[in-house]
């Protein structure tokens, strides 16, 4: 049927190579001793005629990303294997990487095999996150450069063979011939004969011109979908290791509670040979089967201390602006107060956004096989769905007290994660339990483990905005002041305490340190707080923004969060775009100008202008200002728009939402989303469309439904399942989705996965206003909240 991606099958290796790997066991630490000087020579061992392409095994566990052989191997059997550090979560990037390989090497797609995210075998490309995969693989030092270097080397070999120069050659399907004589041919496999390239990446290698793409730029069906449809796909949740036991975690009932004592006798004699694992405040049970472990969790008696003090949820936003802060300016022209004082008209508003969660459909899961306890002779192998196998390896090394070179972390796909869900935490959990028991342990979270004791939330926000306009309505100044919360982040080599399991196991979460803002030296819009309409001029440097407003101040306050926080799809950019783009709409309405026309007056970046115009055209946008309805009765309809340059440099998108608002119930229904997106050359038009569709819909779920709830007096998070953390569900109205994909082959590839989701909340908020004349400045737009706003008027 289909190629199964990411199957690094050790049995595919040549016999000598496999033997060496087996002798090295779990550890590559001793591998050099075993393999000696042959380490680099796997692909030359055995019969070259039958030899499949192979990457070197790296004894240190580190892969030299400057070496072409670390990325691509061409077998004497014409097979092509590529090794990458960017993984698949259902966003389609494994298929894109296959397309990229086939395109740059001029080989058929079916000939390419992709191995990704396996420490010691694939290059360390950090985490697969932040819509950075296209930028990384198509950019300097990435997969494309390795492929282009390899292609140039193959063409030079062919030129030598035919006694000509590479520019006199033609190539197709991995077959090369002199352009003048197609009767002479030689294949890549024949040219390389199973040898390695032994080349350093060439930063001057020239990629194919995107306007000539024949494989990239086409809607190649995703390679992972058939296996998923037939139930044959191996998720991390389906990894089965011989002798594997099943673990479950026991989390503190209150946030921040500590273990006082654990009554192991409470589970003694239960079915399944139950064992209890305790390390500081980490508690887990291990049993023969999942069901045994689940029963043991219910029975285990743990005496916990009382938890930490939580802020009252009802007054969260008031509390937030009173806390000690760590401050930074994204931009500060220094004249905003004066410009506001001299403006013909001024505006101000405060927007708020709740904590939200990733809410992965799959509770996180990992399997760990730790042998030899701790120290330099111990080893560990971990199968998990982390976004970063190397950061996971380097941080779990501290958790286990095992050198990172003795640890192999293998990515196996989980469900969509949308950021820092429980993937890294559950890998620690499985590793801790396996280490204590001395056998392989699989741990899968319960639904409430994932939601209240596994993942790291997207932080709440308070945003205060000010703007001034001149007599003609032109905006003359923009002031932003925002508060967000932070605790921990992605784990790295020094901070396993950045996530819940590491902190429970006794590793410190880096403390929050208040700090005053210093004048910015460069416009870094990756802070995700500046709006589209400022110039972004900092320290006299060229404008870094997309707008025309020169008087600008963007002041960011970070405060300590009571809950662990981490990147959630469109981190900070979504929350701030809700505020910035709704505020822009407020001003357009006050001036009685069409909201798209008002935006266009203040945009300078032609690519952002292009997506705004494309969305407007596709949605048949009629130019008019919003008007207040004469009465708030019945079902009202409206339209709203929003636009963004994601992260200030990573994909242009505009969205128009059409909604109805039932004024008797407060129910908001999105009837249509029209999205326009431009992220440079498109790899897969249908894949990009699929990402945008899921993005706007997930953004709609977050806008209409989602908010993490807690009870401060009880010290508990109450959002622990899908009834207490409701999301968009099957049966809710499905909007008509129209997506305009703009293929811009004149610029570099950028990301696309987080563009559209950024815009849903603001576009819906603007559409609610267009329908009702009521501006709602707090999310989510639940019927209760909307009804209260309608009754309160505005």
């Amino acid at each position, binding site marked *: 049927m289909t190629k199964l991606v990411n199957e690094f099958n050790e049995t595919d290796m040549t016999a000598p190579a496999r033997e060496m790997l087996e002798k090295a066991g779990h550890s590559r630490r001793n591998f050099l001793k075993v393999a000696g000087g042959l380490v680099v020579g796997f692909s030359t061992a055995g019969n070259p005629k039958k030899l499949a392409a192979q990457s070197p095994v790296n004894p240190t566990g580190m892969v030299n990303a400057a070496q072409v052989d670390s990325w691509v191997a061409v077998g004497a059997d014409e097979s092509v294997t590529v090794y990458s550090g960017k993984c698949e979560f259902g966003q389609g990037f494994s298929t894109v990487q296959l397309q990229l390989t086939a395109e740059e090497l001029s080989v058929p797609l079916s000939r390419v095999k992709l191995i990704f995210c396996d420490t010691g075998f694939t290059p360390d490309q950090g985490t697969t996150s932040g819509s950075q995969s296209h930028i990384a693989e198509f950019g300097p030092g990435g997969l494309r450069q390795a492929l282009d270097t390899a292609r140039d080397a193959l063409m030079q070999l062919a030129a030598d063979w035919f006694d000509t120069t590479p520019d006199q050659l033609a190539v197709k399907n991995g077959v090369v011939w002199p352009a003048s004589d197609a009767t002479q041919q030689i294949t890549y496999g024949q040219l390389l004969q199973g040898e390695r390239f032994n080349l350093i990446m060439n930063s001057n290698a020239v990629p194919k011109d995107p306007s000539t793409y024949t494989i990239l730029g086409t809607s190649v069906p995703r390679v992972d979908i*058939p296996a998923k*449809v037939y139930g044959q796909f191996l998720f991390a949740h389906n990894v089965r290791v011989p002798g594997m036991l099943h673990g479950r975690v026991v989390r503190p009932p209150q946030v921040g509670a500590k273990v006082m004592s654990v009554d192991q006798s409470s589970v003694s004699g239960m079915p399944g040979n139950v064992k209890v694992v305790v390390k500081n405040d980490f508690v887990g049970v291990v049993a023969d089967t999942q069901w045994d472990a689940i029963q043991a969790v219910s029975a285990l008696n743990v005496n916990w201390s009382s938890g930490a003090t939580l802020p009252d949820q009802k007054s969260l936003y008031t509390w937030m602006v009173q806390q000690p802060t760590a401050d930074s300016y994204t931009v500060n022209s220094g004249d905003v107060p004066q410009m506001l004082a001299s403006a013909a008209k001024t505006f101000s508003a405060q927007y708020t956004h709740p904590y939200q969660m990733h809410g992965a459909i799959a509770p996180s899961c990992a399997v760990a096989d730790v042998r030899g306890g701790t120290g330099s002779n111990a080893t560990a192998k971990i199968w998990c769905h982390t976004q970063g196998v190397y950061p996971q390896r380097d941080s779990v090394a501290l958790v286990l007290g095992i050198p990172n070179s003795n640890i192999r972390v293998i990515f196996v796909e989980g*469900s*969509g994660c949308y950021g820092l869900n429980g993937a890294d935490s559950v890998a620690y959990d499985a590793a801790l339990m396996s280490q204590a028991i001395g056998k392989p342990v699989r741990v899968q979270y319960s639904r409430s483990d994932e939601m209240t004791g596994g993942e790291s939330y997207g932080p709440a926000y308070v945003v205060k905005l000010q703007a001034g306009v001149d007599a003609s309505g032109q905006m003359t100044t923009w002031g932003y002041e925002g508060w967000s919360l932070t605790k921990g982040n992605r784990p790295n080599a020094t901070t396993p305490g950045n996530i819940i399991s590491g902190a429970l196991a006794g590793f410190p979460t880096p403390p929050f340190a208040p700090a005053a803002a210093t004048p910015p030296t460069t416009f870094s819009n990756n802070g995700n707080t500046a709006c589209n309409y400022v110039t972004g001029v900092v320290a006299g440097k060229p404008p870094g923004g997309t707008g025309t407003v020169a008087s600008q101040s963007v002041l960011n306050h970070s405060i300590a969060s009571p809950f662990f926080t981490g990147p959630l799809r469109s981190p900070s950019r979504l929350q701030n775009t809700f505020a910035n783009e709704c505020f822009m709409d407020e001003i357009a309405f006050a001036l009685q100008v069409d909201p798209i026309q008002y935006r266009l007056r203040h945009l300078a970046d032609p690519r952002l202008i292009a997506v705004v115009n494309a969305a407007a055209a596709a949605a048949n946008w009629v130019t008019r200002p919003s008007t207040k309805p004469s009465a708030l009765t019945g079902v009202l309809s409206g339209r709203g728009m929003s636009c963004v340059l994601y992260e200030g440099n990573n994909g242009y998108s505009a969205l128009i939402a059409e909604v109805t608002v039932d004024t008797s119930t407060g129910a908001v229904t999105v009837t249509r989303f029209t999205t326009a997106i431009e992220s440079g050359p498109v790899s897969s038009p249908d894949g990009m469309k699929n990402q945008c569709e899921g993005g706007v819909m997930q953004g709609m779920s977050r806008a209409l439904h989602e908010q993490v709830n807690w009870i401060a007096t009880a010290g508990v998070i109450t959002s622990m399942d899908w009834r207490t953390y409701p999301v968009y569900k099957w*049966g809710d109205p499905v909007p008509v989705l129209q997506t305009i994909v703009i293929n811009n082959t004149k610029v570099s590839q950028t990301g696309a996965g987080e563009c559209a989701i950024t815009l849903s909340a603001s576009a819906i908020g603007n559409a609610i206003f267009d329908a009702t004349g009521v501006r709602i400045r707090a999310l989510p737009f639940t019927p209760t909240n909307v009804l209260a706003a309608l009754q309160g008027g505005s």
Partner: protein
Amino acid sequence: MPTYQLTVNGVPVSATVDDPDMPVLYFLQDNLQLNGPKFGCGVGECGCCTVLLNGQPARSCQTATSDCDGQTIVTIEGLGTPDNPHPVQQAFISQQAMHCGYCISGPMLYGKAFVDQNPGATSDQILQALGQSQLLCRCHAHSRMLAALTLYAQGRTQ
């Protein structure tokens, strides 16, 4: 330990379990090593664990193994194979109707069961039917899944 006789994807199997109340999901996943039905919530709020029990969609995370004695279970593995695909599977592939695909047992099996009983069902009817049960797709690929199920209702795969 009690033993129960089940038919899973057309094959007779014996389930010997410690606890008759153990949800059959764990028997399917761990004993039979099936990958289709998945744990999502354990309380019937998401549908990832959906199987067809005697032809009707059921939550395997909430169905005791003892209640499956003498019953017939079909998972998505049992619908069709790459060599002999079921039309609803073909429709999901042609529509590229997923992101991660972890939830797929829910919409595919509830949708199939409804359409089989209501041939020619419209998109709205299918959506309404799926809304009768609590089903989730967290990647929010609903529009494509609904398009796939609507094609299936029309006797088409693409």
